[in-house]
């Protein structure tokens, strides 16, 4: 079972997002970087699958050289190999990202054996294009289902589960396959100290593809307008119960 997990270096969530003066990028001076929660679950799932079925986990990221930090984090969790697809500091459009990843995966596969399963995050935590995994999978001729919160490996097949508004859907796909997963798939581990020390020394392969730009071009980023409003304080402690019930009544809930 050889699993490839695609991850992205994204600003760590926390405070208010500040923008660069020209509005084309996020001001990252005070920010740490991380792997998005969906992708962290993907790494965790791959490590667990490999522990159960054997094989290896490869993590791959497209981004600036600094994305090495995220690869090493995944390695410290227990992934076996890291591949850095260097695409520069500027964020690529989703088509360009997909072509870069596709080219890199083909290169890695051509030198070894094809992966059995590709895992993506359902959408990246920052740009959230909802399509890179699909584009890569289609280019590689793999089936892919998104929103996955459960994976069962069968013989030559994989069973994929996802939540929908009114219940749960279970999909079946032949291997090799791909899935775009969501947080909740598992509870990712914290890297152990040994894992961190090992990850620090692990070799990371670098690939520099030539992505072809697509049709979506970012002009600028901006903060969403904040609604001007006053918060009505209904009261303090238990004394506020009556006005709260009034609000419920107004909404027709009691």
């Amino acid at each position, binding site marked *: 079972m050889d699993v490839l997990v695609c991850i992205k270096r994204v600003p760590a969530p926390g*405070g208010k*997002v500040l923008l660069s003066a020209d509005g084309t990028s*996020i001001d990252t001076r005070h920010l740490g970087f991380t792997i*998005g929660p*969906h992708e962290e679950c993907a790494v965790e799932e791959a490590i667990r699958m490999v522990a159960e079925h054997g094989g290896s986990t490869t993590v791959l990221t497209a981004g600036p050289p600094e994305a090495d930090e995220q690869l090493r984090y995944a390695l410290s969790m227990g992934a076996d190999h890291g591949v850095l697809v260097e695409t520069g500091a500027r964020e690529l459009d*989703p*088509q360009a990202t997909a072509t870069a990843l596709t080219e890199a995966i083909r290169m890695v596969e051509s030198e070894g054996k094809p992966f059995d399963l590709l895992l993506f995050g359902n*959408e990246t935590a*920052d740009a*959230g*294009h*909802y*399509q890179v995994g*699909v*584009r890569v999978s*289609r*280019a590689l001729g793999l*089936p*892919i289902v*998104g*929103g996955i919160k459960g994976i069962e490996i069968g013989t030559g097949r994989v069973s*994929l589960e996802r*939540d*929908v508004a009114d*219940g*749960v*859907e*279970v*999909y079946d*796909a032949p291997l090799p*396959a791909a899935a775009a997963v*969501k*947080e*909740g798939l598992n509870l990712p581990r914290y890297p152990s100290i040994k894992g961190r020390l090992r990850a620090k020394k692990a070799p990371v392969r670098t690939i520099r593809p030539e992505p072809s730009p*697509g*049709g*979506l*071009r*970012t*002009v*600028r*980023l*901006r903060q969403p307008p904040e609604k001007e409003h006053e*918060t*009505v*304080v*209904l*009261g*303090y*402690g*238990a*004394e*506020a*119960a009556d006005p*709260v*019930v009034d*609000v*419920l009544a107004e909404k027709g*809930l*009691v």
Partner: protein
Amino acid sequence: MLLVIVEEDAGGVSAASLEAVTCARHLAEGTGLDLHAAAFGAHGDLAAGLSKYGVSTLHLVTSDATQEYSPELWGAALAELVEHTGVTGVLAASTDRGNELLANAAASADQPFASNCVAIEPGDPWNLTRQRGGGILLEDAELSGRVKLASLVPGSVEISEATTTHEVDVLEFVPAPRATMPHSVIVDRTSRGSGVSLATARVVVSGGRGVGSAEGFAPLEELAELLGGAVGCSRVATNNGWRSHSDQVGLTGTKIGAELYIACGISGATQHWVGCMGAKTILAINTDPEAPLVARADYAVIGDVQEVLGAVLERVRARRAAA
């Protein structure tokens, strides 16, 4: 020609799809294009529901292979329909399925796709605004290509009817069989049953750090039950193991659209805010009057969650008993 993918809701066209139709009509009018719609595996009479909105033609994609949802096959079929009809733009609501379908179609057709748009201006390229990070940031972008695909965040456009109503031509579209294309199939589907879904509940009672423990959610559950709502939680509650991830409201959890959101002991990080900002009214209960969610809420109660909810429950129960 522009094409809108419409989803079905209770036998008619879903509100989110009507928003996409409205948006597409403005785009079509602005550029003098014809407006078509397409539906997969429809059961109800969608044509009637579209006649007031300026749609001239409805394509019903029908084949054995596309009767059940398969992201890859539906996407390929949509790409084929786009090729067949010669449309230059495709819109859909940015539901999980809408995004997945457009992503697959865009991949099949090798055309650009802008997901989660909140506004699109007519012209070429399309000048659009899309959400990043679930709405933490807005991105102004240009979308250019032979065929442009975009999904629209529900709630971004006011649904409006066209000035004239006319009959919708219904055409069946039978896509080519793609038996050899690797694809997934739905093999099982379980319904939630009687429970209220977090995404669609009218009222959500949600808890965070201030609830203090898994047991601390008891009054939240009781209140949700009494009000006919669902229980939600913040990421802190999930991470502490107090609630399952399926209850999580926020960027990486569920985005809600409730009439009332009662946030108990949730300070309101941006990642949480984008999950609950779709609620009509927000009531925040928090000991910290300066918590971000208190500042953004419509109503606030300053105090301890257990103390406040205890008193509220007492009164709600009393009302129930009296009624």
